[in-house]
């Protein structure tokens, strides 16, 4: 009797549909990903049930960390270089073109007094991360903070956007109220009365109403 020889086939499957799907997902994620801007400070925001989302663009972010340091940031690329030169001019600090270029990366969040800003901007991005920033001075004798906010607002009104940007306050849950109140008061004095407090989403209790 002849031996029954099993017909050997290699166990290969057609992977084409899987590859199709994988690349479809890759494309999707590549197109939707927006890399988070570099934050100079880690802020742990409290939670709230508010479901209003932060606007996509034209936002001034004021971060207050748990050591009561005040950080300032703008996301509008168009006004960043003008903002730096105008605020610098007020305090008699001038910047080189390469420093202005570097500011575009830093401006999303920084907390350095203007006198020390040229030194910070001269560093390369790796060294900059190691610098411990001391926060923007925001008191009655040396109020650089409000200069930044007002200049950013004025520039935003003049730019293509044509409106004052949203003011978002990003406070750390552990910071104390007086620091946040001080920041709000300073802006109220300049007739900025609408704020957005950045929070994390928390589910709304059902028994609330």
């Amino acid at each position, binding site marked *: 009797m002849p031996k029954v020889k099993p017909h050997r086939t290699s166990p290969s499957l057609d992977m084409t549909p899987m590859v199709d799907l994988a690349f479809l997902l890759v494309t999707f994620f590549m197109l939707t990903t927006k890399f988070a801007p570099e934050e100079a400070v880690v802020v742990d925001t409290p939670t709230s049930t*508010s479901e209003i989302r*932060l606007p996509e663009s034209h936002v001034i972010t004021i971060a207050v960390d748990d050591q009561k340091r005040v950080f300032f940031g703008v996301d509008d690329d168009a006004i960043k270089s003008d903002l730096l030169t105008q605020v610098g001019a007020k305090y008699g600090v001038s910047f080189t073109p390469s420093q202005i270029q570097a500011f575009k990366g830093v401006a999303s969040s920084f907390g350095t007094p203007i006198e020390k800003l040229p030194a910070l901007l001269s560093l390369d991005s790796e060294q900059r991360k190691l610098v411990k920033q001391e926060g923007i001075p925001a008191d009655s004798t040396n109020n650089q903070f409000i200069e930044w906010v007002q200049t950013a607002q004025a520039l935003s009104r003049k730019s293509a956007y044509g409106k004052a940007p949203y003011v978002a306050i990003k406070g750390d849950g*552990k910071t104390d109220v007086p620091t946040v109140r001080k920041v709000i008061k300073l802006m109220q004095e300049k007739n900025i009365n609408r704020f957005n407090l950045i929070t994390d989403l928390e589910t709304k209790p059902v028994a609330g109403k």
Partner: protein
Amino acid sequence: MSTKIDMTPMVDLAFLLLTFFMLTTTFSKPTVMEVAMPVKPKADDPEPPAIKESNALTLLLGEDNKLYYYDGLLSASQKPELKLSNYGADGIRKVLLQRNTNPDLVVLIKPDDKSAYKNMVDILDEMNITGTKKYALVDIAKPDQELIKSSGL
């Protein structure tokens, strides 16, 4: 001869990229609470009308996540009765819902210097949850601080 290509490395790469993008993407954008502060009064503005005592509820945010409240306003003549509450669902929310039947209710929120920012956000959130329309963030006054101290709560 078969024209099949070994696609395994390509699949490897595709999934590697997929994992990378999946892990770096953040879909949850932060939410915001909108707060409008009163406009700075001009020199020739008339005085704002005073809040009626019967419509007021004062909340004091103390240190260590403590929350005190009393009905009415702070007055020199008589000491309001201070009560202790908390930020939980059984705490201030019940008080607010009770008082909410009064449409003219005004809630005064006075955060103490030692209270955490989280407390302020929590209490503003509580206004949102209970649907309290009229509320104001007010600076804490010295008598309020003394009231907390002397109450022993």
